């Protein structure tokens, strides 16, 4: 295929396969770290709200540490630091773990806020009918909190999609890594990064749309923001 010229800029379709491979890596890393973040974040949030003693303190310390230190530092610690303890991880796995542990702390805070916004009467009613605390959390509190959390939580997912680009710092060839490789070879920095920016933009649009669909799908009257006229 021929190169495309636009206002003095030159785009080469030959870049696309490489960018495509990078895109797949970006999607994999984002998906995996978000999944890790949801599971760990939910556990942390429940411990922060309902935990006592060491469980509470450890979960709080975790959240403070990962929110209080730069993501890049965390990533470099996992990739370059852990080997000195004999733990050697591939660049890809390091990226997933560092980003996953980081987003877990942020997601935990969103989950915690949502859990705490559920009126106390809900827990009381659940316990009054003989549910254990764990059952009440599982069947009454979380189903409501998770519905409420979708809008703020969406922001975190979108951030993670974009922040995943820092894994190129530990030599993962994601979308960003692929772009740098191409740019370094062709010296078409501006063109390549315009293209990459457009791809991220499209991904963010897609993800936002999916999250909005999810929010509508699980919406229940009386929970969260109502669309349309107020009652």
């Amino acid at each position, binding site marked *: 295929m021929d190169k495309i010229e636009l206002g003095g800029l030159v785009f080469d379709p030959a870049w696309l396969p490489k960018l495509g491979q990078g895109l797949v890596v970006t999607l994999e890393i984002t998906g995996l770290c978000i999944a890790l973040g949801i599971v760990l974040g939910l556990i942390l949030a429940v411990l922060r709200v309902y935990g006592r003693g060491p469980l509470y303190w450890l979960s709080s310390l975790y959240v403070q540490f990962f929110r209080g230190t730069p993501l890049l530092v965390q990533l470099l610690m996992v990739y370059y630091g852990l080997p000195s303890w004999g733990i050697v991880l591939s660049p890809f796995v390091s990226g997933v773990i560092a980003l996953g542990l980081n987003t877990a702390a942020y997601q935990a805070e969103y989950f915690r806020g949502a859990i705490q916004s559920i009126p106390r009467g*809900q827990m*009381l009613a659940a316990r009054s*009918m003989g*549910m254990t605390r764990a059952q009440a959390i599982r069947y009454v509190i979380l*189903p409501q909190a998770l519905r409420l959390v979708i809008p703020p939580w969406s922001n975190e997912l979108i951030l993670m999609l974009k922040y995943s680009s820092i894994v190129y710092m530990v030599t993962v060839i994601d979308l960003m890594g692929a772009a740098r490789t191409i740019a370094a070879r062709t010296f078409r920095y501006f063109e390549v990064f315009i293209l990459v920016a457009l791809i991220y933009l499209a991904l963010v649009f897609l993800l936002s749309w999916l999250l909005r669909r999810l929010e509508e799908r699980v919406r229940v009257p009386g*929970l969260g923001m109502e669309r349309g006229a107020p009652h």
Partner: protein
Amino acid sequence: MERERDTDTSRRGPDEVVLRVEDLHKRYGREEVLKGVSFEVRRGETKVIVGPSGTGKSTLLRCITRLTEPDRGRIWLGDVEVTGRGVDLNRVRASVGFVFQDFNLFTHLTALDNVRIGLLKVKKLPKDEATEIARKQLEHVGLAHKADAYPAELSGGQQQRVAIARALAMEPKLILFDEPTSALDPELTGEVLDVMVALAKEGMTMVVVSHEIGFARAAADELIFMEGGVIVEQGPPDQLFRQPKYPRTAEFLRKITALYGETG
């Protein structure tokens, strides 16, 4: 009476004491809200507790299944000492219905699911059986047609009726009502009170904190007047209204009669 009891192995004669509360104390910080409350409820009885706000009526109800932990005193539900060591509280709570002032229906569940959830998760009944019971109880409170509605789509009166159905579905030995109509507009209290009067007539054992004098007169076997963390006086409603022993009782009953009227 003895003979009746002998034939019934579960000792569920009409005289069976369903609930016994002995010398219950509860303190919040410096303030002692319950200063030694004792009473008994027999099978099929309806007791209505009245008294000025802040006299520990709600605390008393919550202490019965230890939703609020009492400081001192003993509570029995049938043969089980609720305040005893190693008691399975979740099992105790599954056998006592609780109806709240602000309904506390589970917001994310339909009316049917609200009624069904305890059967599925606490009693672990199979789904068909739970559904059948839940539908029957919704019908019992006249809301079979609202089975698929979410709480936000129901009026306050309807929500409270669903909450009553939710309590009934568990086949409780006793239902505790904590000011069940206080959060309702006056025109909606009637539908809830009608359901409660019907329940009392059907022989449900109930303890009701309420200022609805009409309900007390129609359904209460005994009226309990509480003030300042103690039971001042108790007896059949007619007796308390006509010849109360203490001037405080007379004064309070006059006041709420003026406020809430005789009908309900």
